[in-house]
């Protein structure tokens, strides 16, 4: 009765960014319903790989599904329902003892992180001549993570296009720890991890376009659209088949959407505004499959628009 066993447990894997939200939902759900849920952390990319192999029912993502992943899912006959659940401000941080950096422009970040920088950009001065000639230490998301894809897309201009000589980890705490304990360091990760560690690392205001003011990540700046280009929606992808055939999964998603505002805020992310939640709920009810994206990470989309795109 392996099948029964499979249905018994709801299997979730994917983004470490979304993990705290799903974990909170899973915990409450199991208390309420006594249905077993496992939540893994493989990063968005890793999560989709499992999802498209049919190993999981739900995949968490901190970026939309990519064309390649859609193909894999299609090949395995897996259809999915795309559900945005929260906003995140991808936060760039430095060591609190670093006094010379007041803000980062997108250009500066690009110079620091683009593939060409690998092995060549080694000091702050090489990024901005007004900064001292001291070494740079980089901490960033691992290559399987949506954060990595989103950051490279938003900063370098091409997803997954990054230098490789930095401390890359799917484990955001490694990044926090690294930046917190190294004066030369900078790194990036989801807002929740910054919130919890704001005493150990310092967020850097981002200058979206030359001349514009530097904007710090916060609930407000995400909601009012000024924290650009690093604001991003977070998603869960539900297997359409599981949603139809497995009442447990359906119950779980219902529970997820019903409680997500409260739980998202509890874990320090930015909840969707009420109208967007309503839209997501409708979308779930309609069980419409597919993605609102065309298989590429996109920067700065509104969720209501997005859902409308799914036919």
């Amino acid at each position, binding site marked *: 009765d392996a099948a029964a066993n499979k249905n018994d447990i709801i299997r979730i894997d994917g983004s470490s960014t979304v993990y705290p939200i799903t974990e909170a939902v899973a915990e409450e759900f199991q208390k309420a319903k006594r249905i077993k849920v496992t939540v893994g952390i493989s990063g968005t990319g890793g999560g989709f790989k499992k999802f498209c192999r049919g190993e999981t029912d739900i995949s968490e993502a901190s970026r939309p599904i990519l064309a390649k992943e859609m193909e894999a899912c299609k090949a395995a006959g897996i259809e999915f329902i795309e559900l945005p659940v929260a906003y995140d401000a991808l936060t760039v941080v430095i060591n609190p003892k670093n006094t010379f950096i007041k803000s980062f422009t997108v250009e500066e970040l690009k110079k620091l992180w683009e593939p060409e920088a*690998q092995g060549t950009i080694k000091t702050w001065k090489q990024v901005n001549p007004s900064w001292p000639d001291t070494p740079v230490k980089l901490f960033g998301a*691992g*290559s399987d993570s949506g954060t990595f894809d989103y950051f490279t897309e938003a900063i370098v201009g091409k997803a997954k296009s990054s230098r490789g*000589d930095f401390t*890359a*980890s*799917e484990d955001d705490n490694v990044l926090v720890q690294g930046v917190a*304990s*190294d004066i030369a360091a900078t790194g990036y990760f989801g807002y929740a991890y910054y919130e919890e560690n704001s005493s150990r690392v310092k967020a850097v205001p981002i200058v979206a376009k030359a001349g514009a003011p530097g904007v710090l990540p916060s609930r407000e700046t995400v909601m009012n659209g000024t924290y650009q280009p690093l604001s991003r929606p977070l998603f869960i992808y539900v297997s359409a088949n599981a949603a139809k055939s497995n009442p447990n999964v359906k119950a779980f998603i219902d529970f997820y959407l019903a409680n997500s505002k409260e739980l998202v805020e509890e874990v320090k992310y930015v909840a969707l505004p009420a109208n967007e939640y309503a839209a997501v709920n409708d979308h779930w009810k309609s069980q419409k499959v597919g993605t609102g994206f065309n298989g590429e990470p996109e920067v700065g989309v509104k969720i209501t628009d997005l859902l409308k795109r799914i036919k």
Partner: protein
Amino acid sequence: MASQVLQKPAEPTISARLAKNVRRHVLERVIEFILMLAALSAVATTISIVVILLYESFTFFEHVSLWDFLTDTQWTPLFENAHYGILPLVSGTLTTSAIALAVAIPLGTIGAIYLSEFASHRTREIVKPILELLIGVPTVVFGYFALLFVTPLLQRIFPELPGFNMLGPGIVMGIMIIPYISSMAEDAMRSVPMSMREGSYAMGATRFQTAIRVVAPAAISGIIAAYILGISRAVGETMVVALAAGQQPNLTFNPMESAATITAYIVQVAMGDLPHGSVGYQSIFAAGLVLMLMTLTFNIIGHITRKKFRETY
């Protein structure tokens, strides 16, 4: 005497209780065969390890030339601009191991000499089991200790020291290995025959002189075996470096820098998903192969040295 005439009975009478001879015989064979299969499990495990490492590495080396693997100075297999040079991982592995040994060899040797030549019987009876206890502490706990206790402590001495560095975990690994080395080296020194010591003491030597000039040289190959097996341990240690050394492949031998070891790379990648068949998946097996070769070399040398020593006494 043998000339006595023997009456020939019709046929040899084998007593009835022995009739189940054949069954017993077969049963014995079956049992032996089963036991042999169990013993072969060790061989099977080794073969599985080798086959799996070689098989995955083989496909890895279809993507990556062996030359690049051995000479490229960057290791970024999971990124767009992929480089597959194992050297940064090897340098990290060697540096952390070297630090560990710089701690463990002198202290372990001194400890062994103390235990074998200085400690009273009672002290030895108390200290040795405690040392064995130390060997049993899970390494993940030591990793935590290196990251959150030792490194901050070191940062007070070297304010420049980054939070992830090779020094802290290296030292902690060294401390972990002390009991291992001291217990093995002590065994070696204990097995130096008492007559050798008596010879030295009879010349009016002190304990220290006897230990340093006679016992340690006599046990030298056993002590070296302990060192070599200690190296193998250090090279294979995973959690301490994975947690505390930083996970950035970095071709450096500077203990004040962060770096990734072969082992740390494997767990780090394993923490994400490993799509079966991707170069990333294969790369951890290639790294594992290198690790296996390194530790195997040390183990073999260590065991040969030890065996030689055991044969001497």
